[in-house]
């Protein structure tokens, strides 16, 4: 048994931290709330580091690494609230990489010359719900049906509405799941094709690039990715978002702890008071628990694929709650100033609140954990 980072993984993490430290991402995140142009373009940095090709096999020009390595990079992005289009790009490349017929765009996607976005679709659960997408609005955000495909042969046309798609604006290629004759199929769509509309939407956290994607008989290439790969992309996206969130928790906790050591009231540091100390320890508890689940998800994707839905959903559920708790604690430990633009805490809070509502929301992930465990119990 060995559940620890390898030397290569430590190096990957340190290199990512170094590369991202060259940018003032937090200042940019604040300024971007009023001026979207303030965000630095981090994609060239990602390309230089080889991140776009992390999950693409070496024969197609990628690094051929696994999900846990990608999670380490996302975690570093989360630490500095960096807006890099990896959350959309990486699950898309995973589907293409798992399509035996391959794809002519893989090499360009591996180098980062072109960028992909994953159209998130949640696989059926234990209650037999079909493949569903996030709706843009609606009571309790009941899941909407996903896109449908029509036609035969390798070229099909796809129609459907997908809301809040991460990193869709500016993507060259859209990769997702559509229903063809009642069966889920992988589809690859050129974003510049007729019938494709991507409406940029900004919500609460300006570093998060989102788009409403509308497909009206959009021409698409049919992929021969197996159904597990289509479902796997959803769970990969859940894992990546979990990793990114926990990266943010790490920094929110560190900053809060440092302040609790420095700030004195009634003659002693506020971190010596149990009320403050226990609140920070609770953040640490949730962080460590979530980190263990990242290991679970990272191991399960290849080591126990049948458990990947459970592992990734549990990681997402715990990480989402951890970031909410961490950002609220960060604000309260800093007192009133923590709730103002003078401080970075609101940026972590904004990140937390929006992240928890994307990709099915933390709630859908939590529900999936119960459902997967029911299925395990049925099989036992």
């Amino acid at each position, binding site marked *: 048994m*060995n*559940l620890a980072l390898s030397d290569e993984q430590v190096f990957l993490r340190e290199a990512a931290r170094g590369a991202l430290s060259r940018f003032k991402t937090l200042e940019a995140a604040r300024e971007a709330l009023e001026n979207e142009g303030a965000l630095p373009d981090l994609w060239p940095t990602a390309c230089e580091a080889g991140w776009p090709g992390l999950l693409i096999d070496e024969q197609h020009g990628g690094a051929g690494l696994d999900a846990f390595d990608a999670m380490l990079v996302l975690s570093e992005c989360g630490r500095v609230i960096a807006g890099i289009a990896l959350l959309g790009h990486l699950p898309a490349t995973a589907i293409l990489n798992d399509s035996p017929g391959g794809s002519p765009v893989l090499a360009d996607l591996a180098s980062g010359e072109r960028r992909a976005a994953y159209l998130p679709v949640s696989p059926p659960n234990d209650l037999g719900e079909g493949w569903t997408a996030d709706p843009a609005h609606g009571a309790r955000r009941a899941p909407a049906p996903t896109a449908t495909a029509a036609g035969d042969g390798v070229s099909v046309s796809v129609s459907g509405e997908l809301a809040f798609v991460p990193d869709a604006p500016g993507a060259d290629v859209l990769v997702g799941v559509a229903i063809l004759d009642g069966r889920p199929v992988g589809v690859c769509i050129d974003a510049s094709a007729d019938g494709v509309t991507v409406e940029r939407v900004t919500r609460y956290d300006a570093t998060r690039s989102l788009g409403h994607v509308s497909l009206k008989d959009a021409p698409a290439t049919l992929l021969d990715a197996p159904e597990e790969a289509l479902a796997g992309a959803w769970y990969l996206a859940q894992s990546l978002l979990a990793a990114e969130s926990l990266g943010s928790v790490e920094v929110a906790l560190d900053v809060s702890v440092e302040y609790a050591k420095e700030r004195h009231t009634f003659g002693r540091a506020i971190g010596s008071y149990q009320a403050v100390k*226990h609140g920070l320890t609770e953040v640490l508890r949730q962080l460590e628990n979530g980190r263990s689940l990242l290991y679970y998800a990272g191991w399960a994707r290849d080591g126990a694929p049948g458990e990947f839905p459970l592992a990734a959903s549990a990681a997402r559920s715990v990480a989402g709650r951890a970031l909410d708790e961490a950002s609220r604690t960060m604000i309260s430990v800093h007192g009133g100033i923590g709730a103002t633009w003078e401080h970075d805490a609101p940026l972590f809070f904004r990140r937390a609140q929006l992240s928890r509502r994307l990709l099915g929301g933390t709630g859908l992930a939590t529900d999936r954990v119960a459902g997967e465990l029911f299925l395990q119990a049925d099989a036992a």
Partner: protein
Amino acid sequence: MDLDDTPDQAAYRAQVRTWLEQNKSAAPILQGPGALEDEAEILAARRAWQGKLAEGGLAGVTWPTEFGGQGLGPIEQVICNQEIARAGVPGILDAIGVGMLGPTIIAHGADEQKSRYLGPMLHGDEVWCQLFSEPAAGSDLAAVQARARLQDDGSWRLSGQKVWTTNAQFASYGLLLARTDADVPKHKGLTMFIVPMDAAGVTVRGLRQISGEAEFNEVFFDDVSLEPGSVVGGVGNGWGTALTTLMFERVTIGLGGEGMGYSSTRFAAAIAADPEARRDPEVRHRLGEITSELLGVRFTGYRTLTALSKGQIPGPEAGLAKVTIVSNAIKAGDLIADIEGPDALEPSSAWSYMISFLPGLKSAGGTEEILRNTIGERVLGLPPEPRLDKGIPFSELRSKEGAAA
């Protein structure tokens, strides 16, 4: 990163599994059809089974071979525990002795103590109990008041009271923390003793818990005579010796994890059997939150094992896993009782005992508040609360505490 056995570990697992297959018919049946009911019979059968496990090398896996152990590492201990659980047979009776007190004697005891006590402990012939906590010394363990006084002939006289003592009702010996010098600061005047539980002046009284069962005891010592040579680890060194025991307790808890039965799989299975409950969005949400956290604990355990196998000692953060287990098991009991209604609280229910046991477990092995203090200070590096007891002789402390109140 992997969760698989190395070839050596796989060979060890196969060896343990073979032994269990060959010997499991000798194991006492404690649950289900044919289960033993008489307390004395159960005790005798479990002692005998521990002896058998010890002969087979399945007890004291991490003990050095010179004391009858296998000289193996924590990973092998976990493999052994897993295989015992898989075989559906009970583990050793004296987990406290073999897991915590024996290793303390191995670390700090005199040679005569090791040769006299360790063998019978390992084989279950003499069960041990841990006599540390007192009514006024729990979280603040160094405040123990049980008093041992040296006599002219080298023997000691012991008076005082201990509490929360598991297995005291049938233990042969106890490892006891007593104050031997009240005129020095409280951590300095402590000494660890071996106490025969059948000595004149020792009284054991069961302590009934919420469920009605008495798993713990109060133990009273009324001028009990302890022979010369009863001291473990030197006079005045009791605090350091106690820390060793507590370190082994953390290891035991860290490796135990889901051994307490509070697992995501078990809770989910209980609800999966109810076709309406498993469709209910609120039930699913509550269960999903609970089980996510418990799944995390399972993998925190693997992280702890990885650290142990690299020779690192688990730090106080292992305590965070205990907080997670207990708080989520409480929520799981609550959820199941909401689903099943008052019947869940009946003694015949599979959940009644757990529901009754958990409120007390919040305080066991370090209260949740103390764990959070310790972790906040040692892991996060936050400053401690101001203390009133630093550097003050224990004898002056109580009057000072009284004045502060």
